[in-house]
């Protein structure tokens, strides 16, 4: 290194890097002592640092925070349990897989199935002794959990656009290929969970090598004009360029990210920057080059500065573009024109250009449990389409042949599911993360608070006669941004029990950051604040004008120049 100051990247001596880097280094490609820890009968946890490694396997060790204090008093360890997140590129499932998941959730998990903001499913409350059985049962229906978390390529998301379903099928293929290509190749996963024989060779990770990525790396594919996946929130976004129903390639966006910590000024959400266009055939090669730049230059000392967005801002876009050109061997073509209309899920049935039908069932906070779980399981017993989960935590029935549409509708009606097809408009534009009681990061309620808040919010909208206008509304229990709050028109991020920061001003298209409007508001003041603003909006808005756009036009929010200023 010529640099006088150590940059704490992959070339820095290991002992100077973050402890997680050393953990990865010594983990023998994510094996650690997980297998031993799973057998330890004295605890429901996996001891030591291995839970950090298990994240790479898509498994989070958690504990029920509602019970922490009482269990400590009872001289018991915390109520350890595991969240199991599937690797589900593009969020697609067959009905058979759904039925298998339904059974697995009943056998091994608590609280049913949960559709996440990254278009996959999570099982909560799996106990350690059931974990291996659970992962094996998932394998039996063709599913795994590798790299659903960890410092690697997280689950690849893929937007939906039922109107161009032929192109969508191709984009979905690319998303799946990206997931396969960038998932960790370690045999450790199979050894630990499937009892596969030990793999000796040290050639397991040609791309990631020992240290994997400095931090999580999110890839998303999107089909304009719907920006449901919030492509500007991805580390690496591919925006499909479709001409006459034919997929030409992708505009490439880099460096988006939501996470921030409230007590650090150098921590902020960032919109991805569109840097050019790549032909479809080269898209994944380019992805690997971009990931390799982050792999080699990302900050491995300070994990709060390790995301790709900080690498880009630290080293500068010109440096990045030069390094990319060097590694890619040629400059990137100019970005093609595109536009987004909104980032929600549209209700109702749509016929795609392949003649097949697509409909969206709105699932509040993605929670599939109790009667809803039963009804969906019943429905999918006789269903010849496919299933697609959305990044807005909803469930789409896709590729339904025309001849069975009538029966599908009739069965939805019969099972009281049809109301989910046409709920109030707001449902397709609302997100909440899991938060309490199982998320270790949560400082306030989110998913459990949403039903009450949403009822109140809808009442305020109705009072001002704007119930037909969708407004992106997102609630998270902490500032880390799982429900992508910093792209919403209205967002609450948890500060403490019952106390939220109120963010306003994202766009309906998901291409503008929200700004902190009022910090530390209790519930009543949030209601009052929104009542007043929505009241003004209903009186003063232009035709078709979205709430976020109105806030700027009316001067309620100051105009921003750079993303950083959103948090000044």
């Amino acid at each position, binding site marked *: 290194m010529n640099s006088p100051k150590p940059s704490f990247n992959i070339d820095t001596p290991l002992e100077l890097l973050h402890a997680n880097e050393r953990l990865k280094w010594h983990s023998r490609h994510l094996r650690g002592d997980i297998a031993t820890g799973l057998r330890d*009968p*004295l*605890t*429901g946890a996996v001891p030591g640092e291995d839970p950090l490694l298990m994240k790479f396997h898509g498994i989070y060790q958690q504990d029920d925070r509602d019970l922490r204090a009482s269990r400590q008093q*009872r*001289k*018991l360890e915390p*109520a350890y349990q595991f969240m199991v997140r599937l690797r589900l590129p593009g969020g697609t499932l067959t009905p058979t897989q759904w039925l298998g998941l339904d059974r697995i959730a009943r056998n091994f998990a608590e609280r049913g199935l949960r559709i996440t903001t990254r278009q996959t499913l999570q099982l909560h409350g799996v106990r350690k002794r059931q974990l291996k059985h659970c992962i094996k049962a998932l394998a039996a229906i063709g599913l795994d959990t590798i790299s659903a978390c960890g410092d690697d390529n997280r689950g690849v998301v893929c937007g939906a656009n039922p109107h161009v379903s032929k192109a969508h099928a191709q984009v979905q293929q690319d998303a799946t290929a990206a997931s396969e290509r960038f998932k960790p190749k370690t045999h450790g996963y199979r050894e630990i969970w499937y009892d596969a024989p030990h793999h000796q060779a040290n050639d397991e990770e040609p791309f990631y090598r020992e240290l994997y990525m400095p931090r999580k790396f999110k890839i998303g594919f999107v089909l304009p004009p719907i920006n449901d996946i919030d492509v500007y929130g991805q580390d690496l976004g591919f925006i499909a360029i479709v001409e006459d129903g034919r997929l030409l390639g992708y505009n490439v966006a880099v460096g988006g990210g939501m996470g921030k910590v409230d007590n650090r000024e150098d921590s902020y959400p960032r919109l991805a920057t569109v840097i050019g266009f790549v032909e479809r055939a080269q898209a994944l090669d380019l992805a690997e080059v971009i990931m390799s730049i982050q792999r080699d230059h990302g900050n491995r000392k300070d994990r709060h500065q390790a995301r790709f967005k900080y690498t880009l801002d630290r080293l500068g876009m010109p440096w990045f573009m030069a390094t990319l050109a060097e590694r890619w061997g040629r400059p990137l073509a100019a970005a093609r024109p595109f536009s987004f209309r909104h980032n929600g899920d549209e209700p109702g049935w749509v016929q795609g250009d392949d003649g097949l039908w697509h409909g969206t069932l709105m699932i509040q906070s993605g929670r599939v449990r109790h009667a809803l779980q039963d009804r969906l399981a019943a429905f999918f017993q006789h269903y010849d389409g496919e299933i697609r989960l959305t990044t807005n935590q909803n469930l789409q029935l896709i590729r339904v042949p025309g001849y069975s549409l009538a029966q599908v509708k009739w069965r939805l009606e019969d099972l009281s599911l049809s109301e989910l097809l046409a709920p109030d408009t707001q449902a397709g534009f609302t997100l909440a993360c899991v938060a309490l009681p199982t998320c270790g990061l949560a400082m306030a309620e989110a998913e459990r608070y949403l039903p009450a808040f949403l009822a109140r919010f809808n009442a305020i909208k109705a009072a001002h006669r704007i119930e037909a206008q969708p407004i992106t509304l997102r609630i998270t229990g902490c500032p880390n941004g799982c429900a992508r709050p910093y792209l919403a028109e209205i967002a609450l991020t948890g500060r403490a029990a019952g106390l939220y920061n109120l963010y306003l001003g994202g766009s309906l298209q998901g291409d503008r950051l929200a700004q902190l409007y009022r910090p530390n508001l209790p519930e009543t003041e949030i209601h009052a604040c929104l009542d007043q603003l929505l009241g003004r909006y209903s009186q003063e808005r232009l035709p078709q004008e979205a709430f976020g756009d109105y806030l700027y036009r009316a001067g309620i929010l100051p105009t921003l120049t750079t993303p950083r200023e959103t948090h000044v």
Partner: protein
Amino acid sequence: MTANTAERLIEDTQLSKLDLLLKEFNSDQLLWLSGYIAALGKHAVSDAGNSSAPKAEASKVLVAYGTETGNSQALASKLAFALEQKHIAFELKNLSQMRARHLSRYHFILIICSTHGDGDPPEPMSNFYTSVMAADAPRMSGVHYAVLALGDSSYPKFCATGQALDDRLSALGAGRLLFRQDCDTDFSDLAGQWISDVSGILAAKLPKAEASAQARTDGKRPADSQAAEHNRNHPLKAEVIENIRLSHADRSDAIHHIELGIDASLPELATGDALGILVENAPRRARELIELAGCAEDAVVRVNHRNIPLLQALIEECDITVPSKRLIVEWAKHSKSPFLRDLLVQDPQALRAFLKTHQVCDIAAGFPTVIDAQSLVDGLKPLQPRLYDLANSPQQNPEELHILVKRYQYAFNDRLCSGVGSEYLADLNAGDAVRVFPYRNAKFHFPQAEDTPVIFIAEGTGIGPFRAYLQDIAERAHGPAWLIFAERSFEEDFLYQAEWQQAVADGHLALVDGIFHDRCDDACTIEALLHARQAPLFEYLGQGAHVYLCGDRALLQGVEASLEALVSESAHPWPALQEAARIHRNLY
């Protein structure tokens, strides 16, 4: 020999008898007799100087007690007092210090002993009991004895120890002074009668002795001993520091960890010992009974030598759950119920069946009457103290006494009843006062040697003493410790889980095996676990391990049987381990 001397040495009656007798002898006879008597006198003097021989006729009376909770000891003191009143010399001994071979030293042996649990001798006298029952126990012809047996008729083997001793002494050739008296938990009247009877008989058989108090060898006079140490009659006041429900809120037989603070220290307590607790009846239940009996709460009654209000008596002193025959007598008298009257004169089987199927409140409700407070109290059995194993080390933290209590509920007739002791304890709040006394359980003490391994097999609350042991060994060198623990749910009922984890991390606890009924995919019984863990089992036994079994009797007896079978062909057969006192049981 002058008349003055004779007057001082020999009583008038003796002198007059002697005079009458001597008048029958002629002079030759008298001459021979003088030498004979002189020789007799010399012999007597030398005997008196030999400390190993009985000192005098009067010292050949033994009062011996075998006690678990102090009742027998207290009655032995009463008997001693009665003998002193009659100027009868005696020795007062705890049977824990005696063996069968010592008995033949005495002419008269008065035994007071209780029965522990269901038919077991009190732990301290177990060695004596074994020696008397042994085939080679010495013959005892010429010895006379009497037995006062204490027991609890709620156990099938009521007064079994006293009965066994009575039969055995008779079989060994000793003669009964009077018939054995069996007493239930309301023993004071019958025991008092027996004491009066036996001391009267002895007085008639023996000449009066001089000051007999010095013949007592027990070391302490009863009054002194009671002042110095705490027992059921002189409990120590403890204060509840904390009462933590360890098990899940939904569990009806909840397990509580209760920490008691004491100002005094109880140096006699060791790890493995228990705490006696003077439990109390729920005031609600006492009031219900008072209402049914038509009494006044504040009526003054005399109970256990105290005059106290009825409500207090029913809360603190009387068993208001399990009826005795005495209650039927009182109730028949007051209610004039022909049924109850008949019950008392019919065959005892019917009465016993009635007592088993009725609680005190059933009788009070079923045969309504107004009864005076004293008669009510007299009809009730005394409330027995409850024993709970110490769950902390009295050495490491002498100011605190920790116990584990499982709420006990049972169906009786058509209602759900709570066990008196566990309800009282589980409902305690911080700051409440509790009366306690130390209870020694030497059989369950732990090895002090620095290399002896310990295998501790516990069910439920039986895990408590092991916690105390771990607190001890955390402070000293020790052999490996292995805990085998059975409970219901891994997540909710792994009692003291966090502490075991710490002990494993600190290297004090080598092995932990939990058997939880909610995860029966693995070894789901202790027996199956031991079968699967034979390697460490034989390794531990090979290193001289002591095996502890603590908790539910039925479950752990099964475990012991399978352990016995498991090691029967090994180098450590069960009888050998037992012989070497390496098996310790604390079953309930």
